[in-house]
């Protein structure tokens, strides 16, 4: 038990010391390697959108609410892009059992998102994900400004309001 507290206190101290100068917006993506749907390796640090907002959404082919969220946004996506220049990056956490189904699924649905595979959930874990769907919104500088856990019909409106807030700033 002693050891645990030692470690905890140590970590908390470092965190606190660091956090003092850290403001809310200074929260960026960790750098993790992902696979493209073509099997090439891409690092999350290369995510960019010319200073426009980026939405990062974690999903899986076995996750019904995730698919609902991305299908709903798919219909609104052209308008969202025209109005705000936002880009959506969809990260599948399907493992070996179902990861080969991701590309066919994306193609069938005709999603225009940038899609990546996170087969052993390395990125999901680094983003502190527990269950999908998990959605992050980043401003033009790559700071995470909004996080949402889960999806139900209408949640896309709240997300879009947050995107609009960023653009209007």
């Amino acid at each position, binding site marked *: 038990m002693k050891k645990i507290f030692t470690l905890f206190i140590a970590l908390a101290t470092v965190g606190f010391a660091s956090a003092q100068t850290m403001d809310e917006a200074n929260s960026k993506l960790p750098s993790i390697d992902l696979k493209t749907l073509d099997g090439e390796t891409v690092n999350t640090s290369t995510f960019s959108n010319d200073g426009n907002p980026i939405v990062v959404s974690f999903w899986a082919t076995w996750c019904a609410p995730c698919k609902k969220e991305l299908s709903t946004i798919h219909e609104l996506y052209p308008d969202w892009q025209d109005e705000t220049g936002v880009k959506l990056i969809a990260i599948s956490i399907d493992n070996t059992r179902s990861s080969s*189904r991701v590309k066919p699924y994306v193609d069938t649905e005709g999603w225009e998102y940038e899609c990546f595979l996170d087969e052993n959930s390395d990125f999901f874990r680094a983003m*502190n994900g527990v269950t999908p769907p998990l959605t992050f919104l980043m401003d033009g500088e790559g700071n995470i400004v909004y996080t949402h856990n889960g999806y139900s019909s209408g949640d896309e409106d709240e997300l879009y309001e947050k995107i609009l807030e960023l653009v209007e700033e």
Partner: protein
Amino acid sequence: MLKKAALISAGLFMFSTAFAQPDDPGQIHGNVNFTFQQYGEDTLINAVVPPSETAINAYTNLIYTRGKFSTGVRFESYLNALQGYPPNFVGNGIGYRYASYKDDFAEITIGNIYEQFGSGLTMRAWEDRTLGIDNSIDGARLKIKPFKGLILTGVYGKVRVGFNNGLVNSQGFIKGINGELSINEAFGALYDKQMESLENNDIDTPLKATFAKRISEMPLKIGLGGSFVSKYQKDEDPALILPENVGTWSYRLNLQRKGIFWKNEYVYKINDPSTDNRFVYKPGEAFLSTLGYSTKGFGLVLEYKYTDNMSYRIDRGQQLTIGTINFLPALTRPHTYNLAATLYPYNVQFSEVAYQANLSYKIKRGSKLGGRYGTTIAVNYALATSIDSTATISNSNPLYGYNADLFGQRLEDVFFQDFNVTITRKLNKKNKLKLSYINFVYNNDVNQSARDNLGNEVHGNIYAHIGVIDWEHKLNKKNSIRMELQNLTTEEHLGDWATAVIEFTRSPHWFFAVMDQYNYGNEDPERKIHYLLGSVGYIKDAHRLTMSYGRQREGLFCVGGVCRTVPASNGFTVTYSTTF
């Protein structure tokens, strides 16, 4: 203790400062997640109340990153662990901690590591809290990228086999190396390099460069891979001479050309007598192949898997989900509808031949069949059968166990078969309809999860048909209602079942749901039981709080072909999660 803490934090701080940009103070992130359950008595469904009456599984993760440096811990609590959770999760403490440094060339991690080589058939260290799986490797990992397109990984460490007021590691340890090469990316890097030297020396005739450019830009993408994993465990068996080092290796070839992809992996494992294979000395072998084609509105995936004697654990004597080193994917569709997911879930076998075909097609919007918004049809067929094996002739080498040849199969020995069709159609702005039909052949002699009214195992095949209507209606911008009606018919096992779900959501904060699973076809009138479960959830940004009350049926709870048994329960459950 405080002194030690101060020392560690000073060390961490200096380490992080040394590698970080001077103006970057670093960031702390984390998550909190717990499931609390209260158990009530319910003799009708054989719900057992544990002595502690309540249980909680709780997790807190903290990750600190500063520039290229990152470190993290996870605090875990099992007071006591949820009923049906593996027995090796006890108490309070730190179950995971790591520190890592990463730049463009290398990444070094010490402490607990999650890692997957290829498809995971040789090694996969991963975590799934819902299943009680955490086989992280406690040791060190080095990952290097000598040039673009090539990634080399080496790991060395013990395997997490449990939790007892802290991390419990295996006695033995594993070591593994893995290489991934993308031919196209590598030649692209070579081209860039050659062009650079051209600029410097001003040589013309860039023949080599043209060649490299051609390879890097060809439409055929080639990926090669290979891994070698070895585990060490002392032989303490009084009777048998057991291999103390067991090696496994694999070769991979991935091809892709426009919409077509073909992925292959072959695995070999030397003799590895264990409880799983009843201590036979036969080596293990596996082959996994996936062929797919997709284009806008259409997708087709064909999969083949052969595995023979592929259990691979850090401890020969361990069972269930404990101490696994590799991952054997089930080639079946992960179902999400209650009856299809809980009654007859497939339990992947260490030796099996499996096929799967998955087809999806979107009928264009605006067409006669497709309707105003288009209609999606998904068809899936999965079959798992026995491999072809013959017992070794007695006296020749009884410990070898049996003979089996790669690709050998016995199609008549069906372990599991699943044929399912799903049609999804948005009817209009407010209504969406999803219809599913699922047909199972479930060999319970293999899966061993179906039990009759008296609790005895059912023998032979169970044939089941399931129909599902899933209708979603948007009341207005914020409110929507969803209804599921499911019906299962079977002559075997417990007879027919029906499940009804009504879910009301009010975006962005609330959801309410009621589910009733009803065994209306049970022969015994007293056992025509309703399993009624009500849930309320509140969501705010990254926070998610769910409360539910009711009955849950005993059964196999599976994700990705890995299962754990969940006992029947009747009570109150609270789950909470957040990410920060």
